[in-house]
């Protein structure tokens, strides 16, 4: 079939009258992926023609690609035809009716994190009648942001309301040809976040998906685009320390950041998706493409991530340092325990002169966990006086876990300087005994030692997030020793 044939397109699109859309929005598309599914997603979202073309191009390209196998992760073959690519908000009767139906282990974690009951229900996907508190909070925030001229909305809304920005920037940092999962995401993404900070504006608050009202149903193919115009600043928080209940096993998000001249973007993530049961069954596969473009001179992009969840984490938040004197930073803590696997790191591509990058990666493995740091630093020919400092440290708890480090370094400019440090250590019995002899319980001792190990990364997180991240780490590693 020639899919570019206008008559076919008209025929297919013709089916999506307003009424039909309403009908389908209450449903879920049947499992499977073909061009028709891509068209239907685009139609449901009432997207302009160019975006549908973009999706179709990505889909056709995806068909020619193979799932990457270079990461040190193992999982059963993913059946892409068994996934449903659009699912409207679930109706009440399908949702759990009360917290009694939720996995008690998840509830215990909520309690340890001190999450209020109403919020627990929301996180666990329980049908709630009362309007959730954060809605009103979010409304207040929206007003303040609007006054500053900051656009903070869902990507679907931005596609309708800010077509010029979407057209210019969507896919400009992560093209659909980038990798297998980015191609898939471009073809089928259903929602995500859009942020635009105008020239010279310092965003008056930390932006968080938590406060975006409809964030709960962004689905498994999330798309985020953040643009910081000249001289602006924005700090964005993604995720939540509470374990999120989610029925989609495969998550393939794409995040694009663009920093123009003198702009700064700080992107912080706490990822705590379901890691699977004790045997490693049922956990989330988190295959994410995150990349920032330091487009303007003296721009700066910082990625900070705390990854404690998911069965498999595959992500490399990266920076393209195109502007002269631009700065890229990556601070990461990745915890794997049980049967969790993480292959994570960053790429720093130095293009402009006097560009600088810093990489601090802390991997913690316990039980049967496997943790790999994979990083690539490239100094292009024109990257005069570029600098990179990389530090990757691994901490092992117990003797059945694993840590790997794969640094790739390419230097094409003789004035560039690269430093790489790597360490592997163990929480040893002596450290624990020392702490316990000073009156600390074993769990407090482990948590203190691990927090000390991660300090440089936690220091980069916004204050409240750092407090939560510490708590989360403590809970994540409970019972890991002994």
């Amino acid at each position: 079939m020639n899919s570019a044939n206008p008559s076919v397109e008209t025929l297919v699109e013709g089916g999506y009258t307003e009424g039909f859309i309403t009908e389908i929005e209450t449903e879920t598309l049947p499992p499977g992926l073909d061009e028709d599914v891509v068209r239907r997603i685009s139609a449901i979202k009432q997207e302009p023609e160019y975006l549908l073309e973009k999706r179709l191009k990505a889909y056709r390209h995806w068909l020619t690609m193979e799932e990457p196998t270079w990461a040190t992760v193992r999982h059963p073959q993913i059946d892409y035809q068994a996934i449903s690519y659009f699912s409207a908000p679930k109706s009440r009767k399908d949702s759990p009716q009360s917290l009694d139906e939720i996995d008690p282990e998840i509830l215990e974690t909520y309690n340890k994190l001190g999450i209020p009951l109403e919020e627990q229900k929301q996180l666990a996907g329980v049908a709630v009648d009362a309007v959730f508190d954060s809605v009103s909070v979010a409304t207040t925030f929206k007003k303040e942001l609007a006054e500053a001229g900051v656009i903070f909305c869902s990507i679907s809304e931005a596609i309708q309301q800010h077509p010029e920005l979407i057209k210019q920037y969507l896919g400009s940092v992560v093209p659909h040809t980038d990798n297998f999962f980015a191609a898939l995401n471009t073809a089928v993404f259903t929602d995500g976040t859009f942020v635009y900070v105008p020239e010279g504006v310092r965003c008056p608050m930390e932006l968080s998906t938590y406060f975006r009202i409809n964030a709960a149903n962004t689905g498994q193919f999330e798309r985020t685009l953040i643009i910081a115009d000249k001289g602006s600043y924005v700090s964005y928080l993604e995720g939540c320390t509470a374990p999120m209940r989610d029925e989609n096993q495969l998550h393939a998000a794409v995040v694009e950041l663009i920093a123009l001249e003198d702009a700064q973007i700080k992107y912080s993530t706490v990822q705590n998706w379901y890691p699977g049961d004790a045997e490693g069954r049922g956990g989330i596969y988190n295959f994410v493409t995150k990349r920032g473009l330091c487009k303007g001179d003296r721009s700066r992009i910082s990625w900070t991530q705390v990854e404690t969840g998911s069965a498999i984490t595959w992500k490399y938040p990266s920076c393209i340092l195109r502007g002269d004197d631009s700065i890229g930073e990556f601070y990461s803590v990745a915890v794997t325990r049980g049967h969790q696997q993480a292959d994570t790191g960053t790429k720093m591509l130095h293009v402009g002169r006097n560009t600088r990058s810093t990489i601090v990666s802390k991997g913690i493995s316990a039980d049967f966990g496997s943790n790999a740091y994979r990083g690539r630093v490239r100094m292009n020919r024109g990257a005069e006086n570029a600098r990179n400092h990389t530090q990757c440290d691994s901490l092992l708890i117990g003797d059945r876990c694993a840590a790997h480090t794969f640094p790739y370094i390419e230097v094409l400019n003789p004035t560039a300087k690269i430093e790489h440090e790597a360490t592997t250590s163990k929480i040893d019995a002596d450290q624990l005994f020392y702490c316990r002899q000073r009156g600390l319980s074993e769990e407090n001792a482990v948590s203190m030692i691990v927090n000390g190990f991660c300090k440089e990364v936690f220091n980069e997180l916004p204050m409240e997030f750092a407090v939560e991240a510490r708590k989360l780490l403590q809970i994540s590693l409970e019972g890991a020793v002994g």
Partner: protein
Amino acid sequence: MLTVKNLHVSVAGKPILHGINLDVKAGEVHALMGPNGSGKSTLANTLAGHEDYLVTDGEVLFEGENLLAYSPEERAQKGIFLAFQYPVEIPGVNNMYFLKMAVNAIRKAQGKEELDALDFMKHIKATLTKLDMEDSLQKRDVNVGFSGGEKKRSEILQMALLEPKLGILDETDSGLDIDALRAVATGVNKLRNAERAMIIVTHYQRLLDYIEPDFVHVISNGKIIRTGNKTLALELEEKGYGWITGEEAA
């Protein structure tokens, strides 16, 4: 305060202590001397509850309770402090923070109010003054990059802050130059009082020039083979361990 009866201890399946008997009363300072490998440090670690040290026979009573039933942290909370021969480094953990955690863990277990940051600062300042020490170590990470002398002084400061009933010093004098030795000894002497007992494990007599013990015990092959007063230490220094272990054999 502490009664050790017929204590037998194995490490990794190898018997090290073969029936130790020891009685320590409040206010007393006991020196435990002996050649390398005699079991001095084994006794110290066993009393503190190190899990590698397996008690195969005998009993230990601390203030009338069976000490062996408690975990290391419970023993610390009951007032047992071990100054380590090799204090452990904990990278990334600020010394001050560590000390505050430890002090409050113990205060909490003893039913006392936990100290807030300000009160803790006062507590640490007062203690430093008392011990005649500088506070240059508090901003650094626990034991990281400390010199041998700094590590041992830090242990004495911890003991002072945690206010134990029984302080056990495991070869605190090893590897110290004379100035550091004196500083450590001064600290220990200031912490002596009528309620607090101490066990000082040492290889050499020289520490005892500064800290005068009430009793000196000589341990050899996992047994206490001689108990005396300060003069026993001096005699040992003069004649060597062979004098006494040989005597035992004969």
